[in-house]
């Protein structure tokens, strides 16, 4: 299991959720938060690593209307795009650098 949902938000609709990421920490948490806070519909987004000895990362999303799960998926896809583009550009620059 790599991801689950923290209980407690069931009554408040689908727009607010806390997800638990297993075996992840600040690397993914902060980068993902950076993207998701910049979405127009998001009211709040934050992450925490509750205890340094447990490899878990809690990720909180509160939105006005969009379901939190949708926002999470969109965030992950956007971050993936950023990484892929960075990789592509880096490869290109390295090749260019080696030519000269």
């Amino acid at each position, binding site marked *: 299991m790599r991801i689950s949902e923290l209980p407690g938000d069931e009554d408040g609709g689908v727009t607010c959720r806390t997800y638990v990421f297993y075996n*992840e920490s600040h690397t993914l948490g902060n980068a993902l938060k950076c993207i998701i806070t910049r979405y127009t519909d998001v009211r709040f987004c934050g992450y925490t690593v509750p205890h340094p000895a447990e490899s878990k990362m809690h990720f909180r999303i509160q939105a006005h209307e969009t379901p939190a799960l949708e926002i999470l998926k969109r965030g992950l896809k956007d971050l993936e795009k*950023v990484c892929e583009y960075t990789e592509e550009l880096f490869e290109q620059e390295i090749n260019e650098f080696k030519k000269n």
Partner: protein
Amino acid sequence: MSDNDNKPKILLEEFRLKNAANDYGLADEIWNFKKFKKHFKIVIVRIDGFEMEFDLIGIQPAFANAFRRLMLSEVPSMAIEKVMIKNNTSLIQDEVLAHRLGLIPLKADPRLFQYRLEDAAEGTDSNTLEYTLKVKCVNNAAKTKDPHKTEDSYENSNIYSSQIKWHPIGNQASTYKEADIGPVHGDILISKMRPGHEIDLHMIAIKGIGKDHAKFSPVATASYRLLPDITLTRIVKDSEAVLLQKCFSPGVIGINSEGCAYVKEARYDTCSRNVYRYDKIKDAVIMSRIRDHFIYTASQLCRKRQSYVRAKFKSLSNSCLVFAQSSDVPETISNMHA
């Protein structure tokens, strides 16, 4: 006027930082991938020997830090994980010796190997490398040279990483060459011995990541800083110019033939705020850093492995992909927690 005038700056004033990343601006922007793509640039500055310097320009601090963290802890490399000690009569204890051996960087390309499962009893040629080290220190029979030099009076008084021998298993002998598999440096001192001391070891190297143990980290260090920018607001001449030059790192401020100071190369300034100690020149300088221009320096352990940086981007995008797929199902899993 410099090219940096229109870029977002964090101002290093005498008693405070103004316009830090979270103050205003950067954090309020709406996310737009196209805009990111348009502004994002990578510049490779230098690759010499084991050091590499490159710039990521137009990127959020969160991504910059994520990439640094990935380089350190999530890019795989090969390292010695298990040491079978058949004989060790040297002064260095078994466990200390094993730890030292683990830290020796290996040339083996991790992309050619797979992760070994934790419960696998036997390694295969696709996930394991085996090495041996068998040395005995004896008196040098022909005491020809200087008897006060230990290297001349004893054989094998120093054990170096070059004495580690690779033992191919399975198909490895035909696929790899010894020169591509052994230790990166041949001159790493493993232990010192005296006559009668003996070391006989069998070592097993596997693929791992820095999160598990620092020995698997492909970089020695990886760090980033923001590009410094220095602007002179008025003419600084003669003795004042010399004083100004002294306030910054060597090579940052130049003095021309008329005795006027100018900013030669702000990039390698350490951004110490020495200049604010002198009342007569502190009004002449605006010190700042470009907020979205990150200068990375990474010293790699193996010369051949510039690819590690490439791999780091892959690693994050892979983990995103995994989560993007697995986030389809958290609703069902949540019931278990409730």
